[in-house]
């Protein structure tokens, strides 16, 4: 083949193939830790880097298609690489690069059999996500979707000997299948009676508005189940604490985004231009509910991975708000504004991939070094694990939406999009928008609370347990992984002017307009739409603060002095020194939120009798939706199966009687 005619899609297929090969190699050679550690995972990270570079290149290229001679007879795999796919492949490459580097040292503690399986499934998981993003027919899409679900299920249940983990895996698998079923039905509707399941055919199928809306609702359900949309979020807080940390990082950072990809693909590409405003309003409303719910629950968690899982639910909510806003603007042909909110959504997807992976990997290091997931037993790790602590600090500030890091930029863009909502020609919508933006801001502000709690309790203060004194910092590969993701957060925060022009290819493809040169006319200032309207410059921001900090530091030293003395902290006049147990626990820190949002939660409290010699206070916070939705569902299923079980006695003559009665009935009715 002529080298000049190799297209990005060929490279991407090679990358996917390489991942599969690496997985198989890992499964065979899993016995040799050093091989896995020094060869398989670093090579896998190199493949991620390749994916990152190629998809960056492919973003600006016209769409490529390819038909693979694989699959069933007469039903080959169709692949297509357009800007949307390229963007999400870029996200996959960027996040998995960090995670694979990190995994290189993570796998060393596993036993041989587990490591083999982990290697295989990890790489199959990556390959199926990449294949999913390239799929150009519903058949391949669902094959990739299911292999992604299955491989991630096996990854979640890596420690399958623990019953809780098996239970978490089961819940995940169940909800994933409910979602897949909805997607199957959705694609069935989308083909519109032609029987052709390639995306090109789906795009041309004309659906009545009823069927289009049904397809949209099914897509929202199916992708919502994967993304953790309310009320299908219940698997997230169970699966994330169960899974090994690199898997949590990939699932939260990348796999949830494949659902966002799917939703964008179906609503804006396959169902192009035929959405009523109710779709956007529905997505917006669900997004806001999910965001507020997720962040309120995150605030009261005491398990650090559960906390991050709920925070992922919040971020998915924010992404859905962005999609909803995009759909609303697009309905009324305000394409530039649709492009603005879509840019915010894509930017936030990328941001979330970076900081959430970083935070999950950070908790992995903490878990590894201390064996504790419970916030109430950690503390003071900034002294023991400086690498992890400082990189996680960057992730924490980023996810809390603080300038000059990346989380702020996407939230800023989204708020700017909200401020354009008066242009919507629908008075009720316009009236609702301020309330919606207020709810979004509330969720974002609460996220800062959650992140202060997370970081402050894990890394700051005094160690709450004596064994924490033995905690060790992360190894070299782990540091590399963490540093890459932290650097990504900083880069995306400081250089939006370099990122947004790349996103323009995607928005032009999906909503027909882009922020274009107005957004980044000046490399220093980010000005979506108009410079008089809004502008923000992270570099300037950082520059001024750094200058003032440096000047103040030297001025204070010069004019006064730099004398410093170490002593004990102030002990309030108590005879004994300060105890670590006097610090806030996770429960204590979350208590105000619990009090304010009490109706949100399902709380079981046991008030102790104060006269007892050792009174114990117990409080259990559960997901309200378990009690409102899932428990009743379980009860109904239980009762139904109880009825059916009555027919089942295990006695042959009864079964013969059933057969006889059935035959009789058939003879009467089906003559």
């Amino acid at each position, binding site marked *: 083949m002529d080298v000049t005619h190799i297209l990005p899609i060929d490279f991407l297929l090679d990358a996917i193939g390489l991942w599969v090969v690496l997985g198989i190699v890992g499964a065979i050679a899993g016995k040799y830790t050093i091989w896995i550690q020094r060869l398989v995972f670093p090579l896998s990270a190199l493949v991620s880097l390749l994916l990152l570079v190629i998809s960056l290149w492919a973003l600006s290229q016209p769409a490529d298609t390819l038909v693979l001679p694989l699959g069933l007879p007469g039903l080959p795999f169709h692949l297509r690489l357009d800007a949307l796919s390229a963007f999400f492949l870029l996200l996959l490459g960027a996040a998995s690069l960090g995670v694979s580097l990190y995994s290189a040292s993570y796998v060393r503690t596993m036993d041989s059999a587990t490591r083999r399986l982990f290697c295989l499934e990890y790489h199959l998981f990556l390959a199926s996500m990449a294949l999913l993003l390239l799929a150009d027919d519903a058949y391949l899409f669902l094959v990739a979707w299911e292999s992604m679900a299955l491989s991630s299920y096996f990854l979640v249940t890596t420690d399958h000997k623990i019953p809780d983990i098996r239970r978490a895996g089961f819940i995940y698998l169940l909800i994933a299948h409910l979602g897949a079923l909805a997607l199957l039905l959705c694609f069935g509707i989308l083909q519109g009676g032609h029987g052709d399941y390639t995306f090109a055919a789906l795009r041309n199928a004309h659906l009545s508005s009823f069927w289009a809306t049904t397809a949209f609702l099914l897509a929202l359900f199916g992708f919502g189940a994967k993304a953790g949309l309310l009320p299908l979020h219940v698997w997230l807080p169970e699966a994330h604490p169960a899974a090994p940390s690199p898997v949590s990082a990939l699932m939260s950072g990348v796999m949830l985004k494949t659902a966002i990809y799917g939703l964008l693909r179906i609503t804006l590409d396959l169902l192009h231009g035929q959405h009523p405003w109710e779709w956007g309003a529905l997505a917006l409303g669900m997004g806001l509910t999910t965001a507020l719910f997720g962040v309120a629950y995150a605030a009261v968690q005491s398990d650090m991975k559960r906390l991050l899982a709920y925070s992922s639910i919040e971020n998915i909510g924010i992404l859905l708000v962005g999609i909803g806003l995009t759909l609303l603007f697009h309905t009324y042909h305000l394409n530039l504004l649709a492009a603005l909110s879509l840019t915010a959504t894509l930017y936030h997807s990328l941001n979330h991939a970076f900081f959430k992976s970083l935070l999950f990997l950070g908790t992995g290091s903490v878990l590894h070094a201390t064996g504790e997931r419970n916030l109430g037993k950690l503390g003071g790790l900034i002294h023991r694990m400086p690498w992890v602590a400082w990189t996680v600090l960057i992730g924490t500030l980023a996810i809390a939406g603080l300038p000059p890091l990346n989380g702020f930029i996407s939230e800023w863009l989204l708020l700017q999009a909200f401020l354009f909502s008066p242009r919507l020609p629908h008075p009720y919508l316009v009236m609702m928008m301020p*309330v919606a933006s207020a709810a979004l801001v509330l969720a974002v502000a609460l996220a800062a609370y959650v992140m202060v*709690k997370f970081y402050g309790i894990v890394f700051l203060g005094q160690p709450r347990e004596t064994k924490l004194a033995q905690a060790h910092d992360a190894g070299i590969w782990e540091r590399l992984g963490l540093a890459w993701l932290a650097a990504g957060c900083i880069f995306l925060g400081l250089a939006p002017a370099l990122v947004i022009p790349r996103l323009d290819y995607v928005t032009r493809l999906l909503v027909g307009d882009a922020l274009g040169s107005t957004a980044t006319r000046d490399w220093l*200032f980010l000005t979506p739409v108009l410079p008089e309207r809004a502008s923000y410059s992270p570099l300037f921001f950082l520059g001024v603060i750094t200058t003032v900090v440096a000047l103040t530091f030297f001025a204070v030293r010069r004019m006064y002095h730099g004398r410093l*003395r170490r002593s004990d902290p102030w002990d309030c006049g108590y005879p004994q020194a300060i105890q670590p147990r006097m610090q806030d626990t996770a429960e204590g820190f979350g208590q105000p939120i619990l009090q304010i949002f009490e109706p949100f939660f399902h709380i079981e409290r046991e008030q102790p009798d104060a006269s007892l010699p050792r009174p114990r206070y117990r409080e259990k916070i559960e997901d309200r939706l378990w009690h409102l939705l899932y428990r009743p569902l379980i009860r109904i299923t239980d009762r139904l199966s109880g009825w059916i079980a009555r027919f089942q006695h295990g006695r042959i003559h009864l079964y013969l009687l059933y057969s006889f009665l059935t035959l009789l009935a058939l003879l009467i009715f089906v003559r």
Partner: protein
Amino acid sequence: MSTWSDTLFQLIQSVLVVTLAPLLLGWINQCRAWLQNRRGAGLLQPYRALHKLFHKEVVLAHHASALFRMTPYIRFGSMWLAAAIVPVLATDLPFSPAADVIALVGIFAFSRVFLALAAMDVGTAFGSLGARREMLVSFLAEPALLMVFFNASLISHSTQLTTIVETLAHHTLTLHPSMAFAAAAFLMVLLAENARIPVDNPATHLELTMIHEAMTLEYSARHLALIEWSSHIKLITYTTLGIALFAPWGIAQAGDWRAAPLAVAALLFKLGLAGAGLALLETLSAKLRLFRAPEFLGTAFLLAVLGLLTYFLRIS
């Protein structure tokens, strides 16, 4: 107008705001003393306090990390930036495109998160208590503040403070009912965010009530001085922000040196009035219980959202 002249104007403005900041606090305390029939410590007392603190030797807890030592500088730097963005004397300053109102809220959040983290760093009961309470107050105050800004943004079609102030000051003479709601909400947020009565009491060290003071309990000497000073800057920034949004008359254009004396006079007059008003408010009201604070801030939030709805009712 040259860029140099603008930059000079910018520098003068920010230095002026930063150096005037303790004076505003001195004035508020003096007014309060007069209202309470006391003689008061004089206008310059905050400067003396800062000077004294800078001279002292830092006493640092044994396991305080670098984060703890960085925070006072970061807080001072971010407050300086906030003060530079607000059009105090003039609009259209060279720094103003660096951040709009949403980014301004972001700057406040940035410095607050650092202070809350530093408070948790030493690991005393008071530190984490203060951090928790501060984050509680702020997660309620921040949305209210943004909603206030959205009110102004919808009228001026911009989140850029310069454009907002120019629109509100020069172009329209109509009254905006939504801005009345916003003003009430802004005042409540100002009191809460600057640790004033009724949400927090800056004069107390009683553990049941303190918020801001609990966070800074472990700080001493130059660190404490910088934190105190940045709190003064925060107060004056909020006050000038209120002036810029709700009483923007007299603010000059950048580089317009002839308008500058008038702008300074107008600023001093308005600051004096605002300080006296704050002192009166603090004398007349009592501190709320901590769990009444969410209600207080919830009211501010609702007022601001009501303002937005009023705006839409008017245009539709």
